[in-house]
């Protein structure tokens, strides 16, 4: 279990972390979200031990990074944003070097490395020089390096940046699979990705934690008045009349009109809304082409939190 308590960091007179606290349980994928310059990288740099001067405490299963840095770091795997790799080494040589750094027992080393290479899909390229690998395989190599020594905590700083859609999908599956045995901290600017992968998200803004919750809970918390998108084929312009007369419709607005195809955004306060609207239009013989919930996304939640924080700051 990772425990971050009252973390503070100053660069000169500028306080970039203003007492942030959060925890991550074993088996959890925690997403760090926030605009650029908000303290995400500083937080990760502190957790990985790259930055050694800070206030507050960082504990992993009770081990304090300041008191036992070597023991703490042995339990951490880190993929930095730029994924620096020694291009003159083969994949296996690099893994062996990472195992050397983490003092992995020589007796079990070969088996351990091959297990990681297999789980990351690198076994068939293990003898290739890193410089000759594709971007996707280089990213996998960076993640594989982070898995050496079977660390409890894995920190991935924007692991899908610059990858094509297929590679992104592969890396997502790989990250998901890591959660079985590790705690994963994941930073990304792609909110749909965070939503798809993470069990919980920490939204940061100007060195503070705005909220820490599961993505679904965040959405539910803010999505109190869900809406629907209704698309009809209305030749006699009766749709608006129906919507005005329907007592289960709280509010509606026209989204798009294209000939006799009309699209409306509707807010309602009735659980049986879908059924009622279907019969209301069926009675007038107006076909409904599409009726979909306009879902409140993590992106909407993220923006709402940021807007509220910005307004509070003003």
């Amino acid at each position, binding site marked *: 279990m990772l425990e971050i308590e009252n973390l503070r960091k100053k*660069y000169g007179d500028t306080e970039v972390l203003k007492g942030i606290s959060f925890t991550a349980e074993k088996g959890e994928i925690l997403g760090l979200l926030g605009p650029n310059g908000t303290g995400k990288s500083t937080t990760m740099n502190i957790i990985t031990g*790259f*930055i050694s001067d800070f206030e507050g405490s960082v504990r992993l299963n009770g081990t304090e990074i300041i008191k036992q840095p*070597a023991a703490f770091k042995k339990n951490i795997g880190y993929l*930095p944003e730029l994924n*620096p790799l020694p291009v*003159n*080494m083969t994949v296996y*040589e690099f893994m062996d070097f*990472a195992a050397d750094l983490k003092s992995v027992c020589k007796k079990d080393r070969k088996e351990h490395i091959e297990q990681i290479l297999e789980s990351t899909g690198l076994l068939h390229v293990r003898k290739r020089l890193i410089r000759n690998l594709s971007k996707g395989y280089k990213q996998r190599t960076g993640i594989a390096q982070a898995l050496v020594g079977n660390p409890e905590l894995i920190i991935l700083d924007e692991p899908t940046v610059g990858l094509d859609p297929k590679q992104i999908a592969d890396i997502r599956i790989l990250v998901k699979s890591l959660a079985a045995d590790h705690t994963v901290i994941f930073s990304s600017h792609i909110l749909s990705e965070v939503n798809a992968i993470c069990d919980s998200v920490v939204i940061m803004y100007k060195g503070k934690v705005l909220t820490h919750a599961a993505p679904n809970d965040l959405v539910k918390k803010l999505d109190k008045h869900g809406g629907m998108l209704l698309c009809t084929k209305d030749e006699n312009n009766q749709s608006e009349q129906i919507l005005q007369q329907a007592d289960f419709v709280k509010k509606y607005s026209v989204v798009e009109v294209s000939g006799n195809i009309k699209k409306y955004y509707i807010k309602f306060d009735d659980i049986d809304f879908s059924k009622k609207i279907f019969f209301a239009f069926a009675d007038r013989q107006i076909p409904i082409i599409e009726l979909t919930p306009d879902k409140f996304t993590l992106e909407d939640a993220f923006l709402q939190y940021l807007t509220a924080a910005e307004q509070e700051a003003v």
Partner: protein
Amino acid sequence: MKSIIKYELRHYIHSSVTFLFGGLFFMICAIYFFIDNIRGRSGDLTAFYSSVSVIMLFMLPVLTARVVSEDRKSGFEVILITSPISTVQMISGKFAATFIVIIIMLSSTLCFPAFLSLFADIDVVSLANRYLALLLLTASIAALGIFISSLTESQVAACVLSLISLLVLFAASPIGTAVGGNTAKIISAVSIFSRFTEMNQGMFTVGTVVYFISFTFVFLFLTVQTTAYRRIHGGGRS
């Protein structure tokens, strides 16, 4: 530390610069040996080893320029710093690997006194003293070069700065002699090349050995401190 030594040695082995400069070093040494000893029909190796020290002055900055700066530039330093090894182990490992390469380079020059021993008597104690002097001098130069490499991300800048610093140290001795008086004594006492010249001429003092070792440790300590400073400031990222 062993892992860092292996990593650095791999770098040297895979770098064409190492072999190019190693070959060039041996070739220039051979030329000086021919001029000083073969053509001059002399069994005295003082001038030859003096030349070796000057060749090292020009060659070592090229070898040490990349030691820290390359990892800083590529970002690989982050992987090393966030691994369980300490900064002291990291810098010591880098220095040890560089020193191993230097030892290999200097070992190659053993063939010259060996060749000379076929025609003249070689004083083994004096020869050992000269090699000790060369090892101490090159260790000091390497430590200074690694320290300068830790100050910048540019290998070229590190190489040029190291060369300038070494030329200043090299020129300090003749300048001090020209000035004369106490200045000459002070400069002679602090100049690594004056100390080397003393040992090369057969004057072995414990003070000189301690001086070289202290010089090496001070610059390795400063390299560790520079790296620690960057860790405190986190490379300026937020």
